């Protein structure tokens, strides 16, 4: 069989068609920037003898500003048929739209293939001890994603591609692998992954994980409960607390792995956190627009800063661990087995990768979920016109926290007297972020963070 120089072909794809293709993709994340050029700067041949050919192309989008972004784009090439660009009689197309090529990628992972390439290496790996299933046949796109692309195989597996290339291990791969290897059940277990190692950068390209058949996500369930009579969600919240606590305990369970070993916060950590939040209050309150929804908190910035000093006072912060990082009701699924599964361990997508890998207090996850309950209650009235039953949010909170404290390793969180204050601290941080965000994007929703902040202001000290 003749070997085709796939890399050579892809690097010469006509720019105009490539540009049109890339800029139209959902995963293309710089839609507001002015593009100078788009080109394939490198390509890793994965199948260069049998048609369709397959390669992972590294596509560079260079902006007028001089900055650039790099994307992970698996491309197929065939002699005829449809594609977005032509070169030397070959047509290039999106490999994820071709079942045969998707299966090829899965096969490479399962066979732990490795492709050496000019100082670097494309490495396909499997998780130790995970049994592989039968060879899949049917492939369908998962849809609904932004920065990644996923395909579902036989309703059993998901192949998820990280599109934007960033130097460093993707936290999702890191966390899923850690949790899978330790048998944590409430996740879609990892089977394998693909990464680039060596020059010019170490980067995660894709993961292969279980597909979890889902009834609903937590958000939908909470809203449905609110629409009904509002007393069915509490036991689920309790269970969610348990799952969350157990997850944190597992994530903190290996002190020999430097990426996961729990750490004591530095002496200044609490004060630095408080100072940071204090400045956020100053900023947000310094430029509050005129808006009736803001009235309850308008002019109360200094009061809030005083309150912050009170809840940020000395006392423990607990320990710092790897955690979910972007935890809310939309990230947890209620499965057909009647239990929760936690999804999406990528952390806050807007933050740089190195930051998403930092260890922080697990209470940030807890605060994220508590704020999410508050959002659900408000969404019920805002979107569906259903006022939440009195006490709904309070009860759900209590149940979630009770479940959490039952399961979490007690050494990770501050003891009882301080715990409440630290939670308030992280909830305030979150609410300020929400306020900032909603003011810019969804003025109708401003009342949700306003209510959260108000609660803190009016709470007896």
């Amino acid at each position, binding site marked *: 069989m003749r070997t085709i120089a796939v890399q050579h072909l892809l690097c010469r794809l006509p720019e105009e068609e490539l540009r049109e293709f890339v800029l139209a993709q959902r995963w293309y994340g710089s839609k507001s920037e002015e593009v100078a050029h788009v080109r394939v700067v490198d390509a890793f041949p994965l199948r260069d003898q049998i048609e369709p050919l397959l390669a992972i192309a590294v596509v560079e989008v260079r902006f007028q500003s001089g900055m650039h972004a790099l994307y992970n784009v698996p491309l197929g090439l065939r002699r005829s048929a449809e594609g977005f660009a032509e070169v030397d009689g070959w047509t290039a197309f999106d490999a994820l739209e071709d079942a045969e090529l998707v299966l090829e990628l899965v096969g490479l992972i399962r066979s732990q293939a490795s492709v050496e390439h000019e100082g*670097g290496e494309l490495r396909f790996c499997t998780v130790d001890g995970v049994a592989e299933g039968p060879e899949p046949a049917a492939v369908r796109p998962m849809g609904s994603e932004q920065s990644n692309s996923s395909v579902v195989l036989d309703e059993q597996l998901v192949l998820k591609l990280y599109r934007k290339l960033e130097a460093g291990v993707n936290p999702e791969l890191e966390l899923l692998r850690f949790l899978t290897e330790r048998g944590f059940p409430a996740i879609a277990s990892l089977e394998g992954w693909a990464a680039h190692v060596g020059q*010019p950068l170490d980067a995660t390209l894709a993961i292969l994980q279980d597909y979890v058949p889902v009834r609903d996500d937590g958000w939908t369930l909470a809203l449905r409960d609110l629409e009904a009579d509002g007393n069915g969600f509490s036991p689920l919240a309790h269970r969610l607390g348990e799952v969350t606590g157990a997850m944190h305990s597992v994530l903190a369970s290996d002190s020999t792995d430097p990426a996961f070993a729990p750490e004591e*916060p*530095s002496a200044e950590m609490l004060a*630095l956190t408080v*100072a940071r939040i204090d*400045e956020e209050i100053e900023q947000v309150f*310094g430029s509050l627009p005129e808006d009736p929804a803001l009235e309850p908190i308008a002019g109360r910035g200094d009061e809030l800063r005083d309150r912050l000093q009170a809840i940020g006072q000395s006392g423990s912060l607990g320990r710092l661990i790897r955690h979910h990082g972007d935890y809310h009701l939309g990230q947890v699924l209620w499965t057909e087995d009647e239990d929760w599964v936690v999804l999406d361990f990528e952390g806050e997508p807007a933050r740089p990768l*190195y930051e998403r890998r930092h260890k922080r207090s697990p209470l940030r996850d807890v605060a994220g979920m508590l704020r999410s309950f508050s959002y659900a209650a408000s969404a019920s009235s805002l979107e569906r016109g259903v006022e939440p039953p009195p006490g709904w949010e309070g009860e759900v909170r209590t149940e979630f926290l009770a479940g959490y404290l039952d399961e979490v390793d007690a050494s990770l969180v501050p003891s009882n007297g301080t715990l409440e204050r630290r939670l308030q601290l992280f909830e305030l941080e979150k609410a300020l972020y929400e306020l900032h965000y909603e003011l810019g994007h969804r003025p109708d929703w401003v009342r949700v963070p306003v209510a959260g902040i108000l609660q803190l202001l009016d709470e007896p000290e």
Partner: protein
Amino acid sequence: MSEAGRWFESDPLWFKHAVFYEIHVRGFFDGNGDGMGDLRGVTEKLDYLDWLGIDCIWLLPMYPSPLRDGGYDIADFYGIHPDYGSVEDFRAFVDAAHQRQIRVIADLVMNHTSSDHPWFQEARSSPDSPKRDWYVWSDTDDRYPDARVIFVDTEPSNWTWDPVAGQYYWHRFFSHQPDLNYENPEVQDEMLRVLRFWLDLGIDGFRLDAVPYLFEQQGTNCENLPQTHAYLRRVRAEVDANYPDRVLLAEANQWPADVVEYFGDGDECHMAFQFPIMPRMFMALRREDATPMYEILERTPSIPENCQWGLFLRNHDELTLEMVTDDERDYMYAEYAKDQRMKLNLGIRRRLAPLLDNGRDEIELMKAILFSLPGSPVLYYGDEIGMGDNVFLGDRDGVRTPMHWTGDRNGGFSSADFAQLYLPPLMDPVYGYQAVNVEAQLRTPTSLLRWIHRFVELRKQHPVFGLGTYEPLQPSNSRIFAHVRRWEEEIVLCVHNLARSAQAVELDLAQFAGLVPEEMFGQTRFPPIGELPYLLTFGARGFYWFRLVEETA
């Protein structure tokens, strides 16, 4: 690096919009409780530095050394001083800093070694020693008579007799710091090996100490020689070829026209300190007259696109007055070193806050001017909280005392016994650690520390300060220092009142007619600029930074 490496670039010009922070490892934080700061200690404080917003840490020399010159007397280029930890600690520190996107550069003294260095010991032992020619020897002490003596307080000559060697050896600094002989290709190669060793450990660059003095030549003052520049180009080529995104920062305490030579054609050092501006800022403040600053900036030649000035108010050395006239020096001594003890060599050994009589307005004004100038600012540890100094300690130790972290014992610097500390922390009622410390200032929203944090953040949000033009306005009121910075679409107007009294100034801003000044801290809009002179009024030592924006925006 492979072919493929070329498409991955991070930020080759990062140093042009970075804020640097200078750390004396011994004085920062004691991680093992032995009374001396160490690398583990600095690692523990990375969260603080991350919060402060600095982009790059500059470490004073951390190599094995007899410490007769604060570590600038290196006895082993390939190790870490045992007081500070190990090479492994260093690697862990650099990794931990990188995890926070903080870069690390370190001092490297290429010009000389400690007299304790095995190379020198070997060299002096016999005229036939293979290391003999690594240093500069002479049978007489009258060669290179035109080279000045730098440490005039302690050194009578650049030559010192070595009874063991039976010859004089050459040294531009202390007599315990013999100069390496760069005429010898082995020395040149060895120093490149040293650079590679640390670059391979992950370091992001070097502050090259005392670079003007590498070579000597009869009939010259032995400074800034062409051979020296040629060698620096070789160093740069090595770095560019194998270590992208690194930086070489030259310490060349010279007049601007000589300093710019260290940038070459963008093929020597990436950065060099802007020494002469610094004393003139202090002078301008005292005289309430911006003229000395305008003058020195006017005399500062432009530099290649890929280069940058390093700016500072104070550092670990004395406030150097080498680059001023004799009259100016007398003035500076009279104004800033009223006590004889405050003088050292040709300079003043004091920290920023005491130099400015602890005036908050003065400190803010000086920081504002510094941050507004073209270049990357370098903060000296402790100055962000307004630490004081101790003029009763010898040499430059007075500005190298332990950092004040808390109001607790030893200022939170160390858990060792007080008597065990390498230097006593300050304990006086004004600058002592109970009054001035990180913990208290973090908690106080109006503190200097919190102000500087916001200030660093503001500067970093506007690349114009690192990358933009400098266009002096020089208004008729000489108490006002006003200039414009411009980069791409952004125009920034910086106006500073050097006077102790309220001032008014009329600025000719006709070229910006139609634009609206927006104050950068509070985003307050001022009246639009018209064809007539633009009137601004200031409180004592006040300043404004404006973005000039479209009226509709």
